């Protein structure tokens, strides 16, 4: 069973601003989905960047950089 996605308020860690709370549920869901998608894109970009960066690191430093980044 898939875990239900966290609501906008849950992602933000507390009650929403009054005007946002007053929105229709579907619009709050859309905002929650958009924030979730932005987080997902960011995490994916980071994973790609971490590996891709090594191509530009001088060979003799790659081990040290890998260790520092935790790859």
């Amino acid at each position, binding site marked *: 069973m898939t875990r239900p996605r966290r609501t906008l308020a849950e*992602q*933000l*860690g507390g009650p*929403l*601003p*009054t*005007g*946002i709370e*007053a*929105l*229709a549920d579907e*619009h709050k869901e*859309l*905002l929650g989905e*958009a*924030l979730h*998608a*932005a*987080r997902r*894109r*960011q*995490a994916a*970009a*980071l994973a790609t*960047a*971490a590996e*891709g*960066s090594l*191509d*530009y*690191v*001088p060979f003799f*430093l790659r081990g*040290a*950089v890998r260790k*520092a*980044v*935790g790859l």
Partner: protein
Amino acid sequence: MSEALRALEAQAEIRKLARVLGEPAERLGFLAEVPPGDIQALRERATTVLFDANVAVLRRMAAASRLLPASVLARIAEKVFGPLLCARIAGLVDAHRGVEIASHLPAPFLADVAAELDPRRASAVLAGIPTSTVGAVARELARREDWITVGRFVGHVPAEAVAASIDVLDDAAVLRVAFVLDDKSRLPAVLRLLPATRLDGVVRAAVREGLWAEAFDVLLRLEPPLAGDLAAAVAALPATDRERAAAKARALGLLDELGPARDALLS
């Protein structure tokens, strides 16, 4: 605030939020009736969530950056990281190092990073960027008509950097940026950086480009003597322009709130 100004501010806030979420602004049109301050609060909290989301990995990357020369890091920033990740990591690297890396990057790329950056988190790096670079980035942002990004930075960079940015903005752009400033309490300080002759130019730009709503928003927030100086620039306009502007102010329900500018419009 008049309903017309509130609606304009809400549109600006929707565009800012859409950028943070990576969504087209049209998709968030349902926020048009929400108070602009609530949209801004949502944006700031969403920004915090995104900047904190991968902070452990980003900190390790920032730490690893100490091992490499700035020129190599700049190449990685441009070719691999891209603007979004550079913006996320900018506040985590040592400020001196961040400035050094930025010095190896072209203004268009720095403009891309600026659009993604949370200036609250990178103020130490921003403070160290040479004013010539700030001017070049501001010029690029103006070319793209990205007033929102310029407006987001005004509250977070030193006065010299704001002055360097204003120098490269034309008079209409000053009004457009003033309208979307994140921190409108900075508005008087920003306008005081303008030479007196440019106040006339700003008012004429409002006439020429139909930016009266933006101009009224500025006028509503100024205190003497700046309010008087801008009202004098309004008084110097041809009578037909003043009549049109007064009609616009009346239509927006703002005429009686404009203080000395009201008298100038009706003179």
